[in-house]
């Protein structure tokens, strides 16, 4: 079996091209193929979309995570923008340093973006993130969330959802799946008074790109939590990556919302998917009983109602300065 170059059947049909009037997102690619991401990796789509949003005047800082490995081995890289690999816990620090250097040289038109996994943000990287936000560094911090330490082989993080199997919460006889609730990074950012923060999903690419573009306008820090399914770690077939992401939001496990200068705005998604269906799509939840799922449902409902209440409560408020 070889990979032969060539057009296959796609280019065989002649005749007039009937392209869409406008592509659904900017056309230019700043991420080359040939990266070593797994088949169907949600984090790859996230990166592709984010770079389409930020464009070539971007500097990206990536700590230890899947994306540290994905660009490939020296001397290859999949990035067509300036890119720095850093130590695991330092993304927030790195962003402050880069922005300071650009400010020192009077360079104002470059987007500084951090791209870190959930482990590198919610666990080991939380101090540096907190510091960067508190200081008001003008940078976009994107946490791409595959809900575990995936690069090191699927160990639990504080972002792993309740119920999930991981190698360090391997269920077993004592049903030791992830018990601790998923750390809510966006709410932690809200508590910092961050100018702009939002959840996003690869299944809503336009929404994700708009949120990044909003973040680019902020003269200070912003934090985007993007949901990126991982076929390898979540145990679902690679072709269902987008499906799983959609169901996460449709089941209200991962609501899409933004907090813009203190004002909550929740995205109402038309379709509703039962939680059970979302969980059944992934092998990492295979062990859960109906009772356990019912318990999870209570928390999902509760958070959804809380979000709507916050939206209502902040609607009439003037946006914070």
């Amino acid at each position, binding site marked *: *079996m*070889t*990979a*032969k*170059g*060539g*057009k*296959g*059947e*796609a*280019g*065989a*049909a002649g005749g007039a*091209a*009937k*392209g*869409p009037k406008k*592509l*659904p*997102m900017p*056309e230019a*690619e700043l*991420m*080359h*193929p*040939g*990266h*070593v*991401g797994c*088949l*169907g*990796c*949600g984090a*790859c*789509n996230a990166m*592709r979309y984010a770079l389409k949003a930020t464009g070539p005047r971007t500097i990206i800082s990536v700590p230890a995570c899947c994306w540290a490995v994905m*660009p*490939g*081995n*020296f*001397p*290859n*890289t*999949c990035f*067509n923008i300036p890119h720095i690999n850093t130590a695991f816990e330092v993304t927030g620090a790195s962003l402050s340093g880069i922005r300071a250097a650009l400010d020192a040289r009077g360079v104002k038109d470059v987007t500084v973006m951090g791209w870190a996994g959930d482990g590198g943000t919610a666990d080991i990287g939380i101090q540096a993130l907190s510091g960067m936000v508190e200081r008001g560094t003008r940078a976009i911090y994107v946490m791409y969330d595959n809900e575990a330490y995936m690069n090191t082989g699927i160990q639990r993080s504080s972002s792993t959802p309740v119920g999930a199997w991981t190698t360090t919460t391997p269920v077993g006889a004592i049903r030791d799946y992830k018990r601790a609730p998923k750390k809510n990074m966006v709410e932690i950012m809200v508590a910092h008074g961050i100018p702009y923060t939002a959840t996003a999903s690869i299944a809503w*690419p336009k929404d994700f790109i708009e949120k990044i573009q909003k973040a680019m306008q902020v003269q200070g820090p912003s934090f985007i939590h993007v949901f990126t399914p991982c076929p390898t770690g979540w145990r679902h*077939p*690679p*072709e*269902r*990556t*987008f*499906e799983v992401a959609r169901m996460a939001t449709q089941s209200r496990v991962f609501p899409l919302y933004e907090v813009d200068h203190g004002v909550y705005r929740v995205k109402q998604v038309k379709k509703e998917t039962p939680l059970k269906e979302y969980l059944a799509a992934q092998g990492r939840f295979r062990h859960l009983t109906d009772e356990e799922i019912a318990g999870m449902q209570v928390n999902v409902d509760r958070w959804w109602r809380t979000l709507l209440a916050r939206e209502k409560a902040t609607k009439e408020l003037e946006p914070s300065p």
Partner: protein
Amino acid sequence: MVDKPNYKTWRDIPPMPVCWYPSSKGNPTGGWRTFRPVIHMEGCIHCAVCWQSCPDAAIRWVEGSPDVDYDECKGCGICAYECPVKTIEMVLEVKE
């Protein structure tokens, strides 16, 4: 900066690990495939969802139509799954 670097000794390399050679040239990943996507163009509605949903940017958009780059495509099947009109077929790769 598109020439493949020809590093042999400690004197050739930059002082720190830094590189720019595109992975699409240095590491084409088409060899990863078990299944290949075949787009039946007669059914294509040119919505560009397949182009958009590829994690590898391995589907190019050429004159309004999708065009799979088989040097890079890993065969994950997302394009076929997401195609709203199901005109992409995942076909088992066979040795030529």
